[in-house]
Each structure stands twice: as C-alpha cells, then as structure tokens.
C-alpha cells in the first residue's frame, strides 16, 4: 500500500525564462475567476425596478448579505469595502470547494493564500498610513514603550504569515486526513474480506477479496466536514480577520 501526498501537479511548462511551470493551482484559479466573473455578469443582466425576476432576487440577496456583514463588522465608514470582501470570500470558498468535484484546490497551495494575505497586509498598512500619516505609522511601532519596537515589527510581519498559514493549514490538513483515512479504509476492508472469504479459491476469490467496501460512504461523510464546512469556515474567517484588521488600523 502506498499513500501519496503531493503538491500542486505541474500541467505544462512554458519555454520562456528557462521554463515556467504552470501548475494546476494557476489553471484552476483562472477557471474559478472566469466562472465567478461569468456568474456576476449573468446575474446582473436585465435588472428592473418593478416585477423583478428570481435571478435578480438572488443577486440582491447576495449583495445585501455581504453589505450587511461588512457594515456590522466595520461600520458604515467602510461600506465601500463590501465588493472587496465579497470577492475574497467567493474566491476563497470556490477555490476550496472545487475539491468536491475532484479538482486540485488552489487553496491547498500556500502561494494562493500568501498572495491574498499580502494584498490584505498592503491594505492594512495603507489604511494605517492614511489615518496617522507616515510619521504616525512609524511612531506606532514604538508604543506603548520604545523597548518593544522589535516585537511590534515582528508581530506586524506575523499578520500576513499567520493569515496565510491558517487558511493553508486547514485546507491541507483536511486533505491529508482524508488521504490517510481513505488508505486505511482500503487496508481495513482488505483485512476483513481476507478473514471472511479467505476460503474462496482462484480468481473469483481474488476479485471478491479486493473490493474496498469500507471506502463507500464513510469518506463522503468526512468530506462534508473537511471540504464543505471547512471551506466556508476558512473563507469566513479570512474575511472576518481582514475586516477586523482594516477597521482597527483606522482607529488610532
């Protein structure tokens, strides 16, 4: 029995600059972005004020939910962050959920989350500088006392790293546990069938003993937690942290 836990598979290599590897992460991310843009385009065609269609009701519900979510957590002052939070949430959730249809999840690759986290880190820093000015931003590191400056800098740099690793670690640990359980279920069903049908001779016995019957059903239940629940959970937490960090950056 061999268990394989791999990184992103390389689909093809571009010949420039000594070979640029195009991984499944990149391709799937672009597919998700294209699908989301297509969905937005389709949902917002033919909007009316009176006798609205079901499509428009869905679109209005989504926009209102996200807008309320942002308004309650960041305050009215930041309601223009709604589209950004909605984009990150849908991208993150769809990137994790794509593993349900057997595709490589882009969020199981640290590069994806690190990109988002660096974007958020840039926004936090920009908000801080806009609130207190460049001098105020630099002086903010010496609070409450000047001795703590190195620790403040470390904790500032830890923000994007912890955000990226949290999302990445949750998705990858789900995948690793799923793989391990899948392999151990195959082993267990093989052992049970050997015990029950060990007396069957010839090729028929081989076939009967090789059915991994325990793999039916049980991985699906785990997948509901690790793929479905965890995907939405991590997308929600990433957005929540983004909002809290940006809102607190403007409060000084």
């Amino acid at each position, binding site marked *: 029995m061999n268990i394989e836990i791999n990184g992103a598979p390389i689909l093809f290599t571009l010949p420039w600059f000594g070979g640029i590897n195009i991984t499944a992460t990149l391709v799937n991310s672009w597919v998700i972005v294209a699908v989301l843009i297509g969905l937005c385009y389709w949902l917002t065609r033919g909007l009316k004020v009176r006798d609205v269609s079901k499509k428009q009701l869905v679109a209005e519900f989504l926009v209102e939910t996200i807008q309320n979510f942002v308004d309650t957590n960041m305050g009215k002052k930041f309601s223009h962050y709604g589209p950004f939070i909605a984009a990150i949430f849908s991208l993150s959730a769809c990137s994790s959920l794509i593993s349900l249809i057997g595709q490589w999840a882009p969020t199981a690759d640290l590069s994806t989350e690190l990109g988002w986290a660096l974007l958020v880190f840039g926004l936090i820093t920009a908000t801080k500088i806009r609130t207190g000015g460049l001098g105020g931003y630099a002086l903010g590191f010496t609070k409450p006392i000047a001795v703590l400056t190195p620790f403040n800098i470390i904790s500032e740099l830890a923000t994007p790293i912890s955000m990226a*690793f*949290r999302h*990445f670690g949750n998705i990858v640990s789900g995948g690793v546990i799923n793989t391990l359980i899948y392999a151990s279920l195959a082993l267990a069903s093989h052992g049970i069938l050997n015990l029950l049908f060990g007396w069957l001779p010839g090729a028929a016995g081989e076939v009967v003993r090789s059915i991994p019957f325990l793999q039916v059903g049980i991985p699906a239940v785990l997948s509901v937690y690790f793929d479905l629940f965890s995907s939405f959970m991590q997308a929600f937490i990433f957005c*929540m942290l983004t909002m809290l960090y940006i809102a607190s950056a403007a409060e000084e």
Partner: protein
Amino acid sequence: MLEKAIVLAGCAVGAGLALIAGIGPGIGEGYAVGKACEAIGRQPECKGDVTQTMLLGCAIAETTGIYGFVTGLLLLFVGPIYLGGFLG
C-alpha cells in the same frame, strides 16, 4: 548511508514532536467553546454574536497548532529531499 538514515530518522521524529503542538489549541478551543456555551445558556438571544466571536477566537487559537502542522509537513516532505541532496 548512516548519515542519511540519521537525517531521515531525525525528520520523522521531529515531525512527530512538532504535532505535539496540537495539544495546546485543542485545550484552548475546547475552553473557548465551553465558555461560549455558558454564555448562550445565560443569554440565548445573543447566540449569533457569541457564535461568530467564538469561531473567530477559535481560528486565532488554532494558529499555533497550524504552525506545528506546517512544520511537520516541511520535515516530512521537504526536509529529507533537501538534507538528502545536502549530504549527497
């Protein structure tokens, strides 16, 4: 040969030790969820807010465990390759 075996054994033992980091978040998150249950029991009307805050706190408490997990992954999958090439 012996050097490689020592490196591989060190990586495996280190990965196991790194996952001890899972104990802390387990205790911490359990404590947070218990307190949240108490709060909901006392004031059932603010269930939504309490749940949201609890999930966020759990996510932050989880960070150290995730660091341990990533260290374990690095030791298992990256360490042997890198150190194996280093030793030749």
